[in-house]
């Protein structure tokens, strides 16, 4: 079906560095996606709830503070609990390589570290969302 992909771009936790999230959001828009941007300091509960209400195809989160091991899995758990079993969840930010396997195991489909071109993230979303 020819329809825009809907993505929730969220900043969980307290860090205010949203350059990456904003640049990615803008690139997604320019790639024809509908981006629901929720701003700073979002709790996992808020992100999961927004993902459900907005019926997004993908939740894209960014954390630079080092709280990713704590917050990313929480979001996955809550989104799944609320019935969002088919929502693709990805993360980005300053995330050490050695944390990535654990995050993937927790249900984060992919982690994008600094230097990733926005086109890579966008292609990943296009190729991995679970709905037509």
């Amino acid at each position, binding site marked *: 079906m020819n329809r825009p992909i809907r993505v929730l771009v969220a900043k969980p936790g*307290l860090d205010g560095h949203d*350059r990456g999230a*904003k640049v990615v959001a803008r690139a997604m828009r320019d790639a024809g996606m509908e981006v629901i941007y929720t701003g700073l*300091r979002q709790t996992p509960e808020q992100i999961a709830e927004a993902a459900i209400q907005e019926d997004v195809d993908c939740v894209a989160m960014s954390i630079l503070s080092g709280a990713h091991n*704590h917050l990313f899995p929480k979001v996955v758990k809550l989104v799944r609990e609320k019935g969002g079993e088919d929502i693709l969840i990805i993360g980005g930010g*300053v995330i050490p390589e050695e944390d990535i396997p654990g995050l993937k195991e927790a249900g984060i489909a992919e982690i994008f570290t600094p*230097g990733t071109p926005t086109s890579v993230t966008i292609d990943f979303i296009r190729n991995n969302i679970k709905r037509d």
Partner: protein
Amino acid sequence: MYNKEKLDAVKAARENWENNKIAKTLAKGPERKEKFMSTSGYEVKRLYTPEDIADLDYNEDLSYPGEFPYTRGVQPTMYRGKLWTMRQYAGFATAEESNKRYKYLLEQGQTGLSVAFDLPTQIGYDSDHPLAEGEVGKVGVAIDSLKDMEILFDGIPLDKVSTSMTINAPAAVLLAMYIAVAEKQGVTPDKLSGTIQNDILKEYIARGTYIFPTEPSMRLITNIFEYCAKNVPKWNTISISGYHIREAGSTAVQEVAFTLADGIAYVEAAIKAGLDVDQFAPRLSFFFNAHNDLLEEVAKFRAARRLWAKIMKERFHAKDPKSMMLRFHTQTGGSTLTAQQPDNNIVRVAIQTLAAVLGGTQSLHTNSRDEALALPTEDSVRIALRTQQIVAYESGVADTIDPLAGSYYVESMTNEIEKRAAEYIAKIDELGGAAKAIEKGFIQQEIQDSAYRYQKEVESGERIVVGMNKFQIQESAPKGLLRVDPAVGEMQKEKLKALRDERDNAKVEESLAELKRAAGTDENLMPYILTAVKQYATLGEICGVLREVFGEYQQSVIL
């Protein structure tokens, strides 16, 4: 600087060179690029000559170090007298661990401390607040009460070191804690030297650790100005920061423009609060970024100094020369670091160090190579500090003042950056000043556009980042990154619980009630905060009371 006759001769020779030599060379093959652009979006010419600075008046525009308009530096002898302060931003996990790192850095020859706080502290939440979960001790040290602050500076004589604290929304509380710790060491406030960042406008613009709405935030800031002018005279009450504006993606010109526009807003607020400009302006300090475009960066620092001096003199009629001097701290550009081939970052930092030093910085933090991956390890921090020391002691650039002055290119670019920044400031004035321009999203939009343009240039390969979009290699994941013990959060929670059991809670309540009352009036809040801090009221409790009275800032997101 040149008479007309000489200039005409220069022009004629240049035209001759262009029409013959250059034309012939270009006929054989074009230059690498059709156009060379500066990061601020203006064209860089093939060659700069005296024609480009024909209008420069040496005595008026450049003058001498320590003299208006301070283009060549704020101190008369600059680094010949005393090198810049090497100040590495550090702090993580608990007060105990950070205290160890500070002592290590001081032993390694660092000359000032720079405290990084964790995000809950920066946003005025105690470590046991639900929103603090997962964040305690991550990007800096967790400070919940005076107790933590006592541990943080244990064994460090506060009359001997100068301490810079990256704290903004709750700056008044952390400053009060510092004063209280000093008192316990027997050091009176007038002996204290250091800086609090205390720059809320750039939090709204770029950094995101705000708490209160604009007006009460500005009031807290002017309260600090007033209090310190009387009691902590050697303290830099604010560090007006372009660093984060640049990190958010601005150009060099925007960094200067928006930072100085914020500066203007603070000066106006303080004057409106009844302070005399020369009473507080000498204690204003600035904080800039240093990026890789070496010469543009040097020009940026020089332009910022000249523009600020003129603003203070002409717009605010400052009389004290100290009010006109733009003194600044520099940090090398975090966003220029790559996660790929991280050792290359050492070279980037070295170039940026040169930019800061050739630009006349007063203090410098050099980033560590692994910061695009995690918090820096001790080894990486040492290399970063050594980079400064090599520039200071081996490169020779610190031996004469403002060595790039007189370069046709650097002078021309200094003029250009000053002109373009002044145009931005005029536009912001039209919008009603920095606070209004932020509210309207103008400043954020400009930065956002630059950030996006930069990203597109990198992705198209038009802008090369070595190791990232060119000259890549297959590499394995770096090992041995610094990890913060996840138990820190639990430890802080326990400490808080113990504190709440042992302190005099009635006195805490009383001091908080007094603070709340005062917050509703226009009294200076510093003495009330100091009293509460000394009773071991926590940061979260103090900010909580102020949140009740002031409300919270509503973010406006511009994309």
